[in-house]
C-alpha cells in the first residue's frame, strides 16, 4: 500500500517514524531550517504558535491482571502494563514494577491505548452552541488556507472533559467544511489548559482541511463556486498559485539572492502541503469525487493523507489502499444529504478488508465519546456482511490508524514500550455497550478517574452553570 505513496512523493517520509523532510524539488537550505523542531514547517513560517504543553505529574503505575488491547498485536489476556516517566515502560503477561509503583488490579477489566479522534470540532464549535462560540467555518471565501483552527479553539469548551472521560486523549481539531480549502487543523492533547498552546501536541504536523461536494457549492451558491465543476476549478486555481509561491520561496531559501519574496499566509500553508510537511484531510463523500481529488493531488504533487466521511469509500476501497489514503469514516451516519445516500454500515469493514487504513472518526462531540461503540457497530456490520473482523482489528480503527493519519503513529496509538503512556482502563470489554472508561492517563498522568471527583476535570464555563454530579 505504501509503494505508491513513495512514488507520489519521491523521498517524502510517508511514515511518521522519520522526521519530516522537505522534498520535491529543492530542499530548504540548512540554515533556514536550522532550529526548527519537529512539527515545525519550512521558513519563513516556522512554528509561530509553539506548543507549551507540559505533561501533568504522574506516578509510576502498574495495572495487573488486565486484558490489554495493544493495537499492535493480539489481545493480552490477564496481562500487565507499567507506566513510568510518561512512557510505557513494560507490557506483557507480567511486568516488573518498582516497589513504589501504584498497583491497580485490573481483574475483569480492559486496557486500550488512549483513543484518537482525527475529526473533531471541539473548541471551534464549542458548547453551548451559541453564535458567539461558532468559530469553525471562515465562510467568507471559498478558499481560506490562511486560517488556522487553533486560533478558534476555546480551551474552556465543556466538551473537552467529556471527551477525555470517553477515553479520548488526542484530537485533531479541523475547520468546518464550508470551504474548498478550509484552513489548518491542529492536533491537541485532551488536557486542561489555560491556552490552546498548552494543549497542542508537541511536534505534531499540521493538517489542511479540504472539502468536496455539496457543502462548498451550497454555501457559495450566489458568489460561486455553485457547482462541483466550480469546486474543482477552485482547488486547481489555488494549487497553481501555491506552486508558483513554493518555487519562489524555495529558490530564495537556497540562494538567498535579493530581498525575500513577500509572504502570503494562505500560500505558506499550501506550499508546505506541496513540500510534504502538512497532511491533507479531505472531506469527501462520494467515490467519484474522491477519485477526482486523487487526480488533483497527482497533478500538483501532493498526497491526500485521509478522506473524511467517505460514505462511499467502500466503492473505492481498492484505490484508497493502492494510493495509501486512509478512510476516516462513520459507522452509521447516512442519508442526511444526497452525497450521503449510499451509506452502509459495513463501510469501515470493507475499507479495512481492502487493505486501506480504516478509521472511525466522529465529527461529533457525542459520538467522539463513544468511539469504541461506533467501532463495535462497524465491526458487527462487517461480520453481518460476511467480512470477518476481529476486535484486535477494530481497536486499530480508533487508535493506531488515526494516529497514522495525523503523523503520530510513532508516539501514540498503540501500547508498546517507549510510546507515550496514553492509556485507558475500561470497566469491561470496550466493544460492549455496558463498558465505560474508569481511568484515563495522558503521558502517564491520571487525568480522569470515574470514581474520584477530584480527578474529574471541570472547565471554567461549567463552574456554577453546570451541576457537578453528571457522572
Amino acid at each position: 500500500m505504501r509503494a505508491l505513496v513513495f512514488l507520489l512523493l519521491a523521498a517524502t517520509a510517508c511514515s511518521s517514524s522519520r522526521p519530516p523532510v522537505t522534498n520535491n524539488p529543492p530542499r530548504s537550505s540548512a540554515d533556514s531550517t536550522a532550529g526548527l523542531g519537529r512539527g515545525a514547517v519550512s521558513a519563513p513560517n516556522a512554528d509561530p504558535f509553539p506548543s507549551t504543553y507540559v505533561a501533568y505529574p504522574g506516578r509510576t503505575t502498574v495495572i495487573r491482571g488486565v486484558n490489554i488491547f495493544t493495537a499492535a498485536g493480539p489481545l493480552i489476556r490477564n496481562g500487565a502494563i507499567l507506566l513510568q516517566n510518561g512512557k510505557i515502560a513494560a507490557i506483557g503477561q507480567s511486568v516488573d514494577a518498582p516497589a513504589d509503583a501504584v498497583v491497580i488490579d485490573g481483574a475483569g477489566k480492559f486496557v486500550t491505548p488512549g483513543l484518537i479522534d482525527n475529526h473533531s470540532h471541539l473548541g471551534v464549535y464549542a458548547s453551548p452552541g451559541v453564535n458567539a462560540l461558532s468559530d469553525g467555518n471562515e465562510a467568507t471565501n471559498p478558499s481560506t488556507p490562511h486560517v488556522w483552527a487553533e486560533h478558534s479553539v476555546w480551551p474552556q469548551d465543556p466538551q473537552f472533559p467529556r471527551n477525555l472521560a470517553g477515553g479520548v486523549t488526542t484530537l485533531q481539531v479541523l475547520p468546518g467544511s464550508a470551504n474548498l480549502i478550509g484552513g489548518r487543523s491542529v492536533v491537541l492533547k485532551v488536557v486542561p489548559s489555560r491556552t490552546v498552546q498548552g494543549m497542542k501536541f508537541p511536534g505534531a504536523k499540521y493538517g489542511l482541511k479540504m472539502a468536496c461536494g455539496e457543502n462548498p457549492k451550497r454555501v457559495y451558491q450566489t458568489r460561486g463556486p455553485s457547482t462541483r465543476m466550480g469546486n474543482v476549478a477552485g482547488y486547481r486555481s489555488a494549487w497553481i498559485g501555491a506552486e508558483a509561491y513554493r518555487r519562489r520561496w524555495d529558490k530564495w531559501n537556497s540562494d538567498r539572492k535579493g530581498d525575500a519574496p513577500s509572504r502570503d499566509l494562505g500560500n505558506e500553508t499550501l506550499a508546505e502541503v506541496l513540500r510534504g510537511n502538512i497532511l491533507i484531510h479531505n472531506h469527501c463523500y462520494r467515490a467519484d469525487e474522491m477519485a477526482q481529488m486523487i487526480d488533483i493531488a497527482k497533478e500538483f504533487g501532493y498526497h491526500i493523507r485521509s478522506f473524511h466521511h467517505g460514505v462511499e469509500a467502500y466503492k473505492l476501497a481498492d484505490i484508497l489502499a493502492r494510493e495509501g489514503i486512509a478512510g476516516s469514516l462513520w459507522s452509521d451516519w447516512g442519508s442526511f444529504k444526497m452525497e450521503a445516500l449510499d451509506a452502509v454500515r459495513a463501510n469501515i469493514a470493507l475499507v479495512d478488508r481492502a487493505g486501506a487504513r480504516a478509521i472511525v472518526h466522529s465529527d461529533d462531540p457525542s459520538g467522539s465519546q463513544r468511539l469504541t461503540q461506533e467501532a463495535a457497530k462497524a465491526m458487527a456490520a462487517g461480520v453481518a456482511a460476511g467480512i470477518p473482523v476481529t476486535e484486535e482489528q477494530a481497536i486499530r480503527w480508533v487508535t493506531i490508524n488515526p494516529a497514522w493519519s495525523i503523523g503520530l503513529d510513532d508516539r501514540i496509538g498503540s501500547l508498546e514500550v517507549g510510546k507515550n503512556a496514553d492509556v485507558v482502563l475500561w470497566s469491561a470489554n470496550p466493544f460492549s455497550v455496558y463498558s465505560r472508561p474508569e481511568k484515563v492517563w495522558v503521558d502517564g498522568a491520571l487525568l480522569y478517574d470515574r470514581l474520584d471527583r477530584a480527578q474529574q476535570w471541570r472547565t471554567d464555563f461549567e463552574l456554577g452553570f453546570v451541576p457537578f454530579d453528571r457522572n
Partner: protein
Amino acid sequence: MMINYSRTLRPLVFASALLALAFSSAPAQVVAITGGRVFPVSGPAIEGGTVIITNGKITGVGANLPIPSGAQRIDASGKWVTPGFINSSTQLGVIEVSQVNTTRDMSAQGKDNIAAAFTVWEGLNPNSVMLAPARNEGITTIAVLPAGGLVSGQAALLNVVPGTTTDMIIKAPIAMVAEIGDASSAGVSSRGELIVKLKELLEDTRFFQTRRAAYERAETRDFAASRLDLQAMIPVIEGTLPLIITVDRASDIDAALRLAREYNLRIIIGGGAEAWMMADKLAAARVPVLTGAMNNIPGGFASLGQRQENAALLRRAGVSVALIGNAGGGDEEAFNVRNLKQEAGNAVAYGMTWDDALRAVTLTPAEVFGMSSRLGSLQAGRDGNVVIWSGDPFEFTTRAERVFIAGREYPEMTRQDMLIERYKRLPNSHNTPVAR
C-alpha cells in the same frame, strides 16, 4: 441484570434474506417459538420459554406450553425473545433526505406557529428505504412526531410493515406535540411569551368548544388560531389526547407542569434534558418522559444540566420513562432509528436496571400512548410483535434474527444490503461492479 459480553460473532448469511424473499408467502396461522430466554416484560423472564402466535396475536407465553399441531416451530434455544421494540419519537418515513426539502414532511407551516390540525402521518412515505433497516434490526413500532413551531401537530403510532400508511397505522392521533423550549423558533421573544401563546390557544379552544354554534354563525370574536386548529385541540383540553411538550430546561418543565395543572391536560415531556432535576415532581404528577441516554453535552443554555444518567434518575424517582433514539439530535436520526438498542444499553451503563431499559423500549412507550393492551409485552391477547435476538439485544454483536409484526415476518434485503452486495467485490477498473 448485567449480561456478560459475549465475544462470539456469528456471520450473517445474506442468502438467508434472499431465500426468505423467494418464499414470502401468506402468514403462518400458528407460530411457536420454543426454547428461548423469553422476556415478557409484563412479568419475569422465562428460561426455555415458548411464545405462541396465532393469526397474528400472541396466544400463549410460558414454560412447557403444548405446541398446537401444525404450528410453524422455531427453535430459539440460546436466543433471547422480546416484544418488538418501539421507538417513541422519530421522523422515520417523513424525512428521507433531510437536506432535500421535497423529502421533508414533518413540519407544517401552520398559522402563527400553531399547526394543531396537522396530521403528520398523511405525508408519510411507506416506501422509505429506511423502514426495512429499522424493522430488520428489531424496531417493530414507531411513533412519528411532527416537529417545529409552537404547536407542531399530531403524532401517530405505526407498525413498521410494508404496504400503505393505512396498513401501518396502529393509532392516529396518539398525541399532540408542542415545543416550548425555544422562543425564536416559535416566533416570539421570550419563554414567558411562549406560555402566553399556548394559554391563549387553550382558552380559545375552550371558548370555541362551548360556543361552537355561535362561531359557525360568526357571532364570536376572532381567534388567533384557525378553525381546524381549534377543533384539533379539543381532545387535548378534554384530556383525552396527551400533549407531548418538547422541552429541556428544568424551569420550562416546571412551567409545563403548571400549565397541565391549570388546564387539566395530560402531558408527556419530550427530550427533557434537565428532567432529572424535576424527577420527584414529574413522578408526583405522573408525567412520563421520553428521553435518551447518550447525551451529556451542555449544548445550549436550556440544557446545561444534560447528563446520561437522566433516564436512570427519573426511573429511580418513579417516573415512567420511554427511551428515544438520536443521541446528538443529528440529521441522521431516521437512518438510525435502529440505534434505539444502543440508547438502552447506554441507559444501563449509566445506572438504569437492565429490566427497566427493556421496559423503556417496549411496554412503557405502549403505556404512554395508551396501547399496552396491544403492544409492548408478550402475553396472550397482545399483537404478535416479537423479536428473536441472537443474544442480549442491547449488545452491538447481537442481531435481530427473526422479527415478527402481527405474527408475520418481512425479511427484506435493504437498499444498504444491495449496495454492499454490489461492491463487495471490486473490479480491476473504474467500471461499476455489475451485480443486482
